[in-house]
């Protein structure tokens, strides 16, 4: 699960839970008392008003009572008001609803305050007694604030909670993005760097951010800068050294030939030896240079459509020519028609190195088998020799520069351990893979490359 999802879901869950708890607590503690408080308040006001109405009635009669009740009824929230005597006769006030009369009866029965909640009205009736023990009932109908319907109240609450949770979700989304997006950018840059793009930098993409992530990004850039300069200077060193080694080698070659011009038969063999060694040295320098170049910039190679079958046949023919000298044969057992995108020179050198390696190590009078198969958008090139293979544990090291399988250092195979390293670099520059396995008493090298579809 990605960090983004984790942060997002956890925070959202936390906020939703907090909301739920707060709501439940609110309902169980605050909502009920509020209604009761309101009832108490209403009870008090009903008590006071009924007392006043009774006193005014006894002092000023029906006319005074009506004036007083009218004054109370003028309030917007009051929808009806009434004052009744013991016989149920209305002494003053406005028209009273049917529910009002029911409540009056109840109040008379209980001799106290009674409340009734209707969808839109709250009714309160109070029975009072004057000093002469005559019974009266005071009633008031009050319009409730708009949302006081119980059902409406509940739906409303749920809507509120939903809105809150959704808002919380949005905020959590933003928060999670805020945390995870810089990590995504950092990760991308790290991957690019690991892939060999030494120019990968990330701080620019953080804009004006100044937090720890931005600091981390800046540190990453500093690190990448350092790695880049170290690697390029190391590569340049390798290249420069190899290049410089060639000048004395070139002079040596000419001096050698001058010596030959002046030599006699006796010194010829040694001069030949010097010639051979200087050629080896030269070959080695060429390969180191090639490897250095391959390791430096993996991306700036020409991209062309290459007929792989033709290339393989071509290189195999050259290798076969070379192999014949030792009674060895290079045989192309299959060559499916397929094309790849890339640099012909690089692929040629990859195939050439693998083939020459096989020819070098295969036993005398044996065959090096070459097969090229096109399967499911991949080109698989297999080169197998009969040279006894290599110990299993050494297989993975075969592609390391200057690596040679144990005893080979003393053998007269003439390799310097760069051929397969070059092949590996060249193949991975084409996003392909190269693997080595022991197979049938020999080594099998397998190169896999992505093919491209034929346009025509």
């Amino acid at each position, binding site marked *: 699960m990605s960090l983004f999802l984790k942060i997002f879901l956890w925070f959202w869950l936390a906020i939703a839970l907090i909301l739920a708890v707060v709501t439940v607590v609110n309902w169980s503690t605050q909502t009920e008392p509020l209604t009761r408080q309101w009832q108490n308040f209403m009870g008090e006001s009903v008590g006071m008003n009924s007392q006043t109405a009774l006193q005014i009635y006894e002092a000023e009669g029906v006319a005074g009572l009506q004036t007083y009740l009218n004054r109370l009824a003028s309030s917007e929230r009051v929808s009806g008001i009434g004052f009744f005597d013991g016989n149920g006769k209305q002494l003053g006030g406005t028209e009273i609803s049917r529910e009002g009369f029911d409540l009056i009866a109840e109040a008379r029965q209980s001799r106290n305050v009674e409340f009734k909640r209707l969808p839109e009205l709250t009714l309160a009736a109070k029975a009072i007694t004057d000093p002469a023990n005559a019974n009266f009932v005071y009633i008031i109908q009050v319009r409730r604030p708009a949302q006081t319907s119980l059902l409406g109240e509940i739906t409303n609450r749920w809507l509120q909670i939903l809105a809150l949770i959704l808002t919380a979700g949005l905020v959590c989304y933003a928060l999670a993005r805020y945390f995870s997006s810089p990590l995504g950018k950092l990760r991308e840059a790290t991957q690019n760097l690991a892939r060999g793009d030494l120019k990968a930098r990330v701080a620019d993409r953080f804009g004006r951010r100044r937090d720890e992530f931005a600091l981390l990004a800046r540190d990453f850039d500093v690190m990448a800068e350092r790695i880049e300069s170290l690697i390029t200077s190391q590569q340049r060193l390798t290249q420069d050294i190899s290049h410089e080694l*060639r*000048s004395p080698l*070139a002079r*040596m*070659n000419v*001096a050698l030939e*001058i010596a030959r011009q002046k030599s006699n038969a006796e010194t010829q063999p040694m001069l030949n030896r010097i010639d051979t060694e200087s050629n080896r040295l030269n070959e080695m320098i060429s390969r180191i240079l090639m490897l250095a170049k391959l390791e430096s910039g993996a991306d700036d190679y020409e991209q062309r459509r290459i007929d792989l079958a033709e290339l393989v*046949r071509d290189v195999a023919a050259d290798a076969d020519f070379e192999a014949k000298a030792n009674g060895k044969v290079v045989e192309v057992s299959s060559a499916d028609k397929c094309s790849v995108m890339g640099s012909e020179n690089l692929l040629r050198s990859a195939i050439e190195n693998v083939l020459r390696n096989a020819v070098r190590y295969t036993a005398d009078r044996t065959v090096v088998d070459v097969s090229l198969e096109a399967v499911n958008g991949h080109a698989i090139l297999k080169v197998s020799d009969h040279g006894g293979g290599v110990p299993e544990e050494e297989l993975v090291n075969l592609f390391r520069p200057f690596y040679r399988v144990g005893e080979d250092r003393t053998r007269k195979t003439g390799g310097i351990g760069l051929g397969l390293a070059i092949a590996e670099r060249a193949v991975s520059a084409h996003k392909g893979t190269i693997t080595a396995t022991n197979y049938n008493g020999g080594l099998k090298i397998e190169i896999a490359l992505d093919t491209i579809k034929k346009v025509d």
Partner: protein
Amino acid sequence: MGSLDFCMNKILIIDDDEELCELVSEYLTVEGFTIESVNDGESGLEKALNGDFDIVILDVMLPKMNGFDVLRNLREESKLPVIMLTARGDDMERIVGLEIGADDYLPKPFNPRELAARLRAILRRTEPISDDADFGERLDIDGIQVSAASRIATCDGVELNLTSVEFELLSELLREAGKIIRKEDLSERVLERKLSPFDRSLDMHISNLRKKLGTRADGSERIKTIRSVGYIYTVL
């Protein structure tokens, strides 16, 4: 161009490695050449343009003006044969060198015997033609005219700017137009050396020649590759 006395061919070496120049001079003198050496590009170009040389050996990495610029400037005024010394393994240098008109290249460090052989091969090709009728050969095939005497090749009336190797390759291919010529034969006849495995120089010369010839009006290639065999000049 050049003296009639083959053994006294004058060679100009442009290379910043003075010691190498001395050694090469010594070697080539014994081989029968007359040598002069210059160590930077600018004076090299001046010498090549004004001196009485038969061939130039030109290094790529030179102070003041690099080998490619020297060659480019030289080609504006002169067809003096040039062998380039390129860094071994650097395909770009070889390709660029041949494209801007080098007659041949030799990767450095080189074998001086090979250098001498190539010098002789180029000099033989560019030697002034005697009145001998055989040398006055003229080919006129498929809109391409080749005159061995003047060493000028034209395609649809436009002069082709060919190096001596390309000129010889074209002549060979046209002479046997419609027939496959094996790579081995082409190498021996034109480059005057045996074709060795993994040697791609013949392919490179052919590729440059193709570029200079262009395709026919209908877009078809004039020179076709017959894989692992050789080349053929196709006839309609």
